């Protein structure tokens, strides 16, 4: 690799006299990489609070929806086999499972918002349910994320499907459309989407699994406030 130019007017063809020294190649790539890294990291740091705020707002909105506008909602973390209103300390604080407990205007607990993730036909379906643990009753359901087949199975996000869950009792069972009359007698029944059996089943399975998982913790949990848990709801029977 010579840097000395070979020149002369007698050459008929140009010779390779423009070899670039290695340090210059290295410097180019290093400088480009450093600048690129700096730009990306600065932008990332600058936009992070905004992105986090948006995620929190989306979750808050979903909680409001499934718990029907509670006065306030507290986060409860699962640590050491019990629910606690104080976040766990240490490394697993971010990973700890959590539910949200909504309260009405009188400060009485109205129900829990529980996130459910269940593999669907395409990708995991993420949804949030409102759940009253004493009566084992669903208060609402909202799909947070679904990549199910457009035009067919994406009906799982639409109110025609999701609105049915309000007032249903766990564990939920699926029925066909022509059996929809059963919904009046069977309080666990929900009409599945024709042509999207896998997606509908995934939603039902996810909800039932999440309730089975959380029920013992919810039953054992007593809010720290003076309100005993069995005043939950007005017509609550335990």
């Amino acid at each position, binding site marked *: 690799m010579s840097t000395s130019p070979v020149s002369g007017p007698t050459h008929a063809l140009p010779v390779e006299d423009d070899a670039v020294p290695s340090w210059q*190649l290295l410097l180019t790539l290093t400088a480009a990489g450093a600048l690129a890294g700096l730009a990306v990291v600065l932008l990332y740091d600058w936009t992070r609070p905004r992105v986090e705020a948006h995620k929190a707002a989306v979750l808050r909105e979903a909680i409001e929806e499934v718990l029907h506008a509670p006065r306030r909602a507290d986060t409860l973390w699962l640590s050491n086999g019990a629910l606690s209103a104080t976040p766990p300390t240490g490394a697993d604080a971010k990973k700890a499972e959590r539910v949200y407990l909504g309260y009405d205007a009188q400060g009485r607990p109205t129900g829990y918002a529980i996130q459910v993730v269940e593999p669907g036909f395409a990708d995991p379906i993420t949804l949030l349910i409102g759940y009253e643990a004493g009566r084992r009753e669903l208060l609402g359901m909202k799909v947070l994320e679904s990549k199910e*087949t457009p*035009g067919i199975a994406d009906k799982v996000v639409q109110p025609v499907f999701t609105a049915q869950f309000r007032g249903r009792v766990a564990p939920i069972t699926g029925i066909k459309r022509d059996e929809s009359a059963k919904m009046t007698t069977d309080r666990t029944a929900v009409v599945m989407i024709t042509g999207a059996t896998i997606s509908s089943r995934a939603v039902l399975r996810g909800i039932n699994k999440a309730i089975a998982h959380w029920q013992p913790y919810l039953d054992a949990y007593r809010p720290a406030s003076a309100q005993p848990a069995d005043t939950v709801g007005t017509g609550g029977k335990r």
Partner: protein
Amino acid sequence: MRCHALPDIPGRRKPTATEDLVRGIWKENPTFVQMLGMCPTMAITNSVKNAVAMGVLTLIVQFGSNVFVSMFRKRIPNEVRISTYILIIATFVQIVDIGAEAMMPDMHKALGAFIPLIVANCLLLGRQEAFAAVNTVWRSGLDGIGMGLGFTLGLSTVGTVREILGSGSWFGIRVMPASFEPWAIMNMPPGGFLGFGLVLLALAWWKDRAARRAAVRAAIARGAPSPALEEVAV
């Protein structure tokens, strides 16, 4: 060697700014003529909204990286130019990805994995090699905008066909009567191929017809007798 470097031919007029801009929109449209960037063309054109968003994001990346490559074209040694171009493109894609997540989170979610995949769109590297590496910043910027607009036009045309047939709407506005049963397949991956094929078919038919008409006009100008005209027009 930069095999695409086209030296200015003496005596040939330099392209005007308008030509630099319009080239990508029509004559060398990335989607319909160059047929580059087929992955987003198939993947995200199930709605016009997604198509326009992807087109605009690609435009930003194309413009930004074109300007940068052109700005440093005399400083980037030939031997490391591909790495450097890819790094420049990747940086802009990352910037666009982060920016979109912060500013339009719903759109960012809808486009999902396809924003990071802009980095693999061969249109981008193709323009760096063929244009930005050998032209001024001003011309490269115009070329980037033109190519980006052309890509947006291509995606939204396919998106129009797919959304109208697949959902009965355009840009989210219902355009088909309520009795119209949407073709679910147009929303799914095969609909990408079908929609793109339909658009290409229409363009080919249109081009063919234009060529025939031009031939007829030329024949008339030559004063050809009418039987000859019919032959051309068939």
